[in-house]
């Protein structure tokens, strides 16, 4: 195409020279400019960049990582290149998950596992990431298409969790068609988190962090179940149905409250709830709120993985009032989730080791500083007061919530082991006999 355009430019030049009437020259000049512009466009046609072996800090326009590696020079991150060792699983590639995936891809994360069962629709275009020409593709395929173009260094694994009629996953190409809330889907989900082919020497599971970007309570409870059983740290994210609030939450099995320890927390809208209309299940969504929540989620992810700054345990976002509540939640010793209780037990058992480690670290840091008074005289009796709160006071028990946070669901009421009224008709205690009884009723 470039050669053809060049020929056209030459033809135009010849035409201009051969024309006796100079009044036509200006329109030929204009044509030449347009062809020149087309030539430039043709030159910028998509070229895929090749993979980069090592992250370089060299400041040149062609280095995709120069601005990220500058975080080391600025003293924010000690070793940015470690990001290439990390695997992050993103469950739900919707308004939040897709944007989180793009952010991590641009940051050069080592490996992303993407889970979704949905397809791209035109109704998704009010959010970021997906493009109209991707309508009809599975969200995982569309995401892999875009993300591999943006950064070919990231290892992308798409797991397409679709509802199949019998709930059993059947393998289609590289993607699975199942639902993580079913027994079979759950097993596949667990296996994919345990898979260590990316970094066989890694301790624990095959992933460093799981990000839950799903839009329903059932799926969150499934992610919670898997992470409790695998002792896997994860982050939960959510945007309210009215699109004006959201939250992120860090969940470390045994150390923080799990998703089943207390009924889920949501940010109160801050307006009279009775004025809010709730009809049908068509949730509202905004690219802004979803983008903000995805940004908060990935920021917390980067801080957690690369060990800088303070990693938030819970951060809410109320868009109507620009209010960001934070809190910490301790695990519930009566949590209904058995795996959570096991992790809590392990965490308590590991307490002495944890304290010894913290003490050793503190001593190592304190050693080189020899205490000498900074100022010999202190005429005004000025003293420096430690303004950090005593440990423990910042974490709240679950029933005292900070302003602006409410529970989404009630807690299970205490079960009274009252005299179970045994039905005379159902005295049979054999499963097959019970099944026959129900079938007999069904047959009538």
């Amino acid at each position, binding site marked *: 195409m470039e050669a053809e355009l060049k020929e056209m430019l030459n033809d135009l030049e010849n035409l201009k020279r051969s024309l006796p009437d100079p009044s036509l020259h200006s329109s030929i000049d204009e044509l030449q400019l347009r062809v020149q512009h087309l030539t430039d466009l043709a030159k910028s046609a998509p070229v895929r960049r090749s993979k980069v072996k090592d992250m370089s800090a060299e400041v040149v326009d062609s280095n995709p990582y120069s601005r990220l590696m500058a975080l080391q020079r600025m003293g924010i991150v000690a070793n940015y290149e470690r990001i290439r060792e990390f695997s992050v699983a993103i469950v739900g590639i919707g308004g939040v998950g897709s944007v989180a995936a793009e952010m991590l891809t641009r940051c050069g994360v080592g490996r992303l596992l993407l889970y979704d069962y*949905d397809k791209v629709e035109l109704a998704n275009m009010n959010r970021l990431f997906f493009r109209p020409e991707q309508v009809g593709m599975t969200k995982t395929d569309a995401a892999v298409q875009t993300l591999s173009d943006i950064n070919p260094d990231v290892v992308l694994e798409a797991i397409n969790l679709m*509802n199949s009629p*019998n*709930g059993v996953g059947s393998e289609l190409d590289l993607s699975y068609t199942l*639902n993580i*809330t*079913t*027994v079979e889907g*759950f097993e596949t989900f667990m296996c994919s988190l345990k898979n260590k082919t990316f970094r066989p020497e890694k301790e624990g599971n095959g992933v460093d962090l799981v990000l839950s970007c799903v839009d*329903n*309570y*059932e799926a969150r*409870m*499934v992610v*919670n*179940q898997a992470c409790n059983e695998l002792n896997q740290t994860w982050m939960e994210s959510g945007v309210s149905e009215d699109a004006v609030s959201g939250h992120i939450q860090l969940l470390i099995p045994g150390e923080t409250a799990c998703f*089943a320890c207390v*009924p889920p927390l949501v940010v109160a809208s801050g307006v009279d709830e009775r004025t809010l209309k*709730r009809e*049908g*299940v*068509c949730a509202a969504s905004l690219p802004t709120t979803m983008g903000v929540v995805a940004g908060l989620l990935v920021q917390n992810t980067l801080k957690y993985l690369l060990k800088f700054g303070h990693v938030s345990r819970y951060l809410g976002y109320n868009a109507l009032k620009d209010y960001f509540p934070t809190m910490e939640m301790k695990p519930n010793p009566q949590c*209904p*989730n058995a795996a959570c209780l096991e992790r809590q037990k392990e965490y308590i058992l590991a307490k002495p080791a944890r304290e010894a480690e913290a003490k050793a670290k503190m001593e190592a840091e304190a050693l080189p500083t020899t205490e000498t008074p900074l100022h010999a005289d202190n005429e005004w009796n000025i003293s420096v007061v430690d303004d950090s709160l005593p440990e423990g006071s910042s974490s709240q028990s679950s029933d005292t919530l900070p302003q602006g946070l409410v529970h989404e*669901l*009630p*807690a*299970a*009421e205490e*079960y009274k*082991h009252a005299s*179970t*009224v045994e*039905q005379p*008709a*159902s005295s049979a*205690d054999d*499963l097959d006999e*019970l*099944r026959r*009884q*129900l*079938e007999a*009723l*069904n047959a*009538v």
Partner: protein
Amino acid sequence: MEGWDKTTKSTLTQIPLLTTKAGPRDGAAWTQRLKEEYKALIAYTSMNKANDNDWFRISAANPEGTRWTGKCWYIHNLLKYEFDLQFDIPVTYPATAPELELPQLDGKTHKMYRGGKICLTVHFKPLWAKNCPRFGIAHALCLGLAPWLAAEIPILVDSGMIKHKDDVASSSES
């Protein structure tokens, strides 16, 4: 339970409550739970028949009792509208309720999630959460599906979104 009609309330109190808190991955405890599920379903079905209010059929579609299929129907203007009913028992059951599906109505109403899962968020889920693990499949049908059908089927019929099977047959013949 405010806002529920008297019939639903009195029916509910007669469905036996469950005691075993177990999901499909809990082995023997799940078998015990399954027995309780059957007892509650048998009691509820018998009660409906006795009260001339029979409105569903449901049976386990696999030996593990993790997938259930059947039918449910609703009478509107003296005509019976029948639909396939199906659901899976989630791995986190009974902490989370089964997501009841009416696949034939998928895409016909916005009170439904993808795959024909009926929307139970407002009226049912808080009740389920409060009564875990005492509520089972029978309670989900009584408090989740029955009110949903009563609210949605008349609207779907009156708006022409669903047609009675006799009307469909006669219109295709003519």
